[in-house]
């Protein structure tokens, strides 16, 4: 008992130092932290344990005011609609590309690869972390850096893959950057997350760039992490302050990042490099080392 008390200070110092070390380590390693991946395997059960009753309650509530078959029909229709809307997004992008007379049809023709619907786990993450937890993981063949869409646009990318769950880094997280282009004229930029507003903003855009409020932004496909042509957001306003080197351009995300429900995982076909290991699901590290982040 007494030794316990007298060791408490030393023990606390050790634990504080250890947690500081862990924080620096995690910050430097980011999503490649194997320790986190290792720890999250047994803890995934807790996440399901919280998520299932919450979703169960929602389901019971919907059964109470609708017939069973209507419910199932509704479910399947929603799934179909999500897939169709994603295709419609592609069509809008191809149209604009045609209009610009760019020879990009070659690359956009093979974007529609394999897709998979994933559900969000009904759990809250840390309020400072803009991430989602999905009910898909290794066993479904997810890989790090994989694009995630919803019916309205780009949601983010897969940040960490565990056997049964995976985490998605949302486009409005400050750590996220998406190469985009303006649909109207093809001006390119990078859209990064903005912690203060919860939206996105374009960085390093010259004052003279031809970007107007209301311009629609789509993924440009540069960087090869995201397939080209998916909606990212809409330009809110363009603030050309002559005192600053670059224009300040906030962007409203197209995807509904704060809604629960389903998202779409995409396996874009990459003709220029063999991408088979991504689809096997066993080799998760290969695409990570191959893809520029």
């Amino acid at each position, binding site marked *: 008992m007494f030794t316990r008390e007298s060791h408490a200070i030393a*023990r606390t110092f050790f634990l504080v130092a250890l947690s500081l070390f862990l924080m620096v*380590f995690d910050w430097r390693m980011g999503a490649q932290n194997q320790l986190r991946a290792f720890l999250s395997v047994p803890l995934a059960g807790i996440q399901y344990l919280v998520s299932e009753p919450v979703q169960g309650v929602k389901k019971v509530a919907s059964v109470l005011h609708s017939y069973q078959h209507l419910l199932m029909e509704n479910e399947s229709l929603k799934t179909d609609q999500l897939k169709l809307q994603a295709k419609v997004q592609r069509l809008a992008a191809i149209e604009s590309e045609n209009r610009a007379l760019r020879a990009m049809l070659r690359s956009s023709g093979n974007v529609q690869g394999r897709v998979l619907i994933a559900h969000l786990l009904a759990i*809250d993450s840390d309020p400072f972390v803009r991430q989602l937890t999905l009910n898909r993981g290794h066993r479904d063949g997810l890989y790090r850096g994989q694009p995630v869409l919803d019916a309205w646009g780009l949601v983010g990318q897969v940040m960490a893959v565990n056997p049964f769950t995976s985490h998605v880094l949302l486009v409005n997280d400050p750590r996220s950057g998406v190469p985009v282009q303006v649909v109207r004229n093809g001006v390119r930029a990078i859209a990064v997350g903005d912690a203060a507003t919860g939206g996105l903003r374009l960085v390093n855009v010259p004052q003279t760039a031809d970007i107007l409020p209301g311009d629609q932004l789509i993924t440009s496909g540069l960087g090869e992490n995201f397939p080209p042509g998916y909606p990212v957001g809409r330009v809110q306003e363009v603030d050309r302050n002559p005192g600053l080197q670059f224009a300040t351009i906030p962007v409203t995300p197209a995807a509904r990042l704060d809604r629960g429900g389903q998202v779409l995982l995409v396996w874009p076909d990459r003709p220029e490099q063999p991408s088979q290991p991504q689809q096997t699901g066993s080799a998760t590290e290969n695409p990570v080392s191959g893809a520029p982040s």
Partner: protein
Amino acid sequence: MTDSVRTRSPSRKRVLLTLLLACMLTLVPMPLKLIWLRPAWLLMVLVYWIVMFPRFAGVGVAFLAGLMLDVLTGSLLGEHALALTIPAFLIMRVRMRFRFFPLLQQALGVLALVLVYQLILFCVQGFLGQPPVTSAYWLSSVTSMLLWPWVFIVLDRWQRHIGPV
């Protein structure tokens, strides 16, 4: 005193169970408007065990619980571990006095502890460049204070009246 404590001392399983429950309460989805009102469940449960049964919970347990919370909520690994270790240490220093406080006075102590906990998280987030933008962030300590008497009574009753798990 020691004997009476020992006869109704909890099992480690029970401590673990309450910590897991606290983690789950932290994960339960809340409406976006109420997100800052979420009380520091894990810290409250830890305070109870440290004050009442220091043989079963201390800074080590607080550290591990924080690590678990970090993995579950996706925050920086070690962030909550640090933020729980230091209040756990503080409450260990004063636990004999704290134990015999009336509940309302204890609640004020919990308010101070949760503020320490939030201050550490605030500093870490500040270092990361994303401090909370709203001052509603600090409301969590108030909800924790208001809930403390209930948490204490529930844990204490469960602890006394039901046999070992």
